[in-house]
C-alpha cells in the first residue's frame, strides 16, 4: 500500500524507528512499583489495578487493527508492572482515538481509555507532547477556540444574517490554562 501522498511522513518515520529499536532492546527494563500508584490516583484511572488481561480492549480497538504497535492490553500491563519509561516514552500511546469502545466492553469495568489518557497526561508532564497538542492548546489560549477561525467565516455569517460567533474572554481562558498547569503545553 502506498501512502506517498500523505503529509506527515516525518512523524511516521520517527515512530517506525522507535518501534524497531524497542523490539531490538533485549535488556530487561527497570520496574518502578510506585508508578501504578501515580496512575491510580487520577480521575477515572483507579480501575487499572483490576485489569486481568483478557484482551477485550485490544480486540475491540479500532486503531489496533491498523497499527502494528498499539495494543491497549499491553500498555495496561506495562503500567501495572511499573515500566514507566517504556510506557511514557512510547509514541504509540498517542494512537488512542478515545472512542471508549474498550471502556464500554471491558468485562472487569476497567476504564481503559481513561487509564490511557492518564498515561498521556503523565507523558506530557515529562515534556513528551506531540506538536498538535501544543498547537491546539495555544489556539485556545489565544482565541478560546481550538482552531483559528478564518476571517471569511465571520464575514459569511454576517452576510447570512447569522449571529456573530462567540468571542470568549481570552484573559479568563488564559488564567484557567495557567491554573491547570497548561502553560507548559503552549508553543514557545
Amino acid at each position, binding site marked *: 500500500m502506498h501512502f506517498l501522498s*500523505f503529509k506527515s511522513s516525518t*512523524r511516521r518515520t520517527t515512530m517506525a524507528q522507535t518501534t524497531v529499536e524497542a523490539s531490538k532492546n533485549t535488556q530487561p527494563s527497570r520496574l518502578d512499583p510506585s508508578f501504578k500508584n501515580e496512575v491510580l490516583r487520577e480521575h477515572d484511572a483507579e480501575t487499572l489495578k483490576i485489569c486481568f488481561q483478557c484482551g477485550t480492549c485490544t480486540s475491540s480497538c479500532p486503531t489496533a487493527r491498523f497499527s502494528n504497535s498499539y495494543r491497549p492490553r499491553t500498555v495496561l500491563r506495562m503500567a501495572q508492572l511499573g515500566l514507566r519509561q517504556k510506557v511514557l516514552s512510547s509514541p504509540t500511546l498517542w494512537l488512542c*482515538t478515545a*472512542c471508549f469502545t474498550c471502556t464500554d466492553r471491558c468485562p472487569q469495568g476497567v476504564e481503559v481509555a481513561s487509564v490511557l489518557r492518564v498515561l498521556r497526561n503523565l507523558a506530557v508532564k515529562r515534556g513528551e507532547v506531540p506538536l498538535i*497538542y501544543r498547537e491546539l*492548546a495555544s489556539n485556545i489560549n489565544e482565541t478560546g477556540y481550538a482552531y483559528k*477561525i478564518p476571517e471569511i467565516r465571520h464575514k459569511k455569517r454576517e452576510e447570512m444574517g447569522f449571529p456573530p460567533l462567540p468571542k470568549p*474572554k481570552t484573559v479568563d481562558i488564559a488564567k*484557567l490554562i495557567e491554573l491547570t*498547569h497548561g502553560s507548559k503545553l503552549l508553543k514557545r
Partner: protein
Amino acid sequence: MAQLKYAFFLGCTIPYREASYEISARRVFDKLGVELVEMPDANCCGLPVDPANHEMMLALSARNLCLAEQQNLNIITLCTGCATTMRKTNLTLKTDKKMKDEINGILNQIGMEFKGTIEVKHLVQALKEDVGFEKIKNAVQRPLTSLKVAEHGGCHLLRPVKYMGWDDPEEPQTLKNLIELTGAKCLDYLDEAECCGYTVIAIDDRVALQLTREKLKHVKDAGAEALITVCPSCHLMFDVNQSRIERAFSENYNLPVLHYTQLLGLAMGMSPDELAIKELRVDPSKLLQALP
C-alpha cells in the same frame, strides 16, 4: 407545552470547517419551534486538550457549563465530542465533591462557580427526548421514500456509557429512527459502531484514513446512496477527506455525506440552498434529482 429553549453551544469544528451543519440545524430548529439562545462568551469544550491535560479540559468545559447556568438554560450541541465532554464534566462535578471543589477553586479566580443546575444534550438526544418523534413526523412534508441511506452516529454520541447512557452504543436505535421519520430507508452495514478515526489524524494519518476508508466501503457495499452523520468531525472524515482516501487507495466511492439536519430539512420541504447543501464536498446533486 412551553416552547423548547436551549443555550446553543457551537464548539470549534463547526465554525472552523462545517458551517453547513450549523446552517441546516438552525433552519430545522426554527421550523420545529425550538429556540436557540446564543452563548456569546463560550469557549472550546476542552476535548482537544484532554489527552494532554485532563484538568485543563475540566476547567474549560466547566466554564461553559457555568455560562449556561447563568442563562438558566440546558445546553444543546451539534457536536458529539462537545456533548460527551461537557456531559462528562457536568456529571463528574455533580457527583464528585472533591473534584467539584477543586475545579471551583480554579473557576472562582475568574469569578465563576459551578453549581450543577443544568443538563447537556446532543442534537440527537434532544430530538428524541425533548422534541419527540411525533412532532418531527408531523413536520415532514416531503417524505424521502425513494432514498436508501446509512447512519454513522460517531463514538461520542453514545460513549462512554457511564456519561452518556441514553441509547445502546452496540445497537444504536435513535438515529435510525430519526432517519426513518424522513421517509428514507436506513440500511444496516458491517461494523456500524466503528470509529471514523478523526481524533488521531494528526498523529498518524494512515490509521485514521484506513478507518474511514473501511467504513466507506461497508456503507457502499450495503447499497446506501448517502451516509448520514451527526458530528462535524466524523463529517470531515467522510466528506472532506473522501477524495484524499480515493486518491491514496486508488478507489472510487462518490458517496454523498449529509448532516442529519440536512436530510430532515429536505424532508420538511426546505430547498437544498437553504440547507447549505452546496457546501458539501462530495456532490449530492444526482441524489437530490432522484428525490420525490
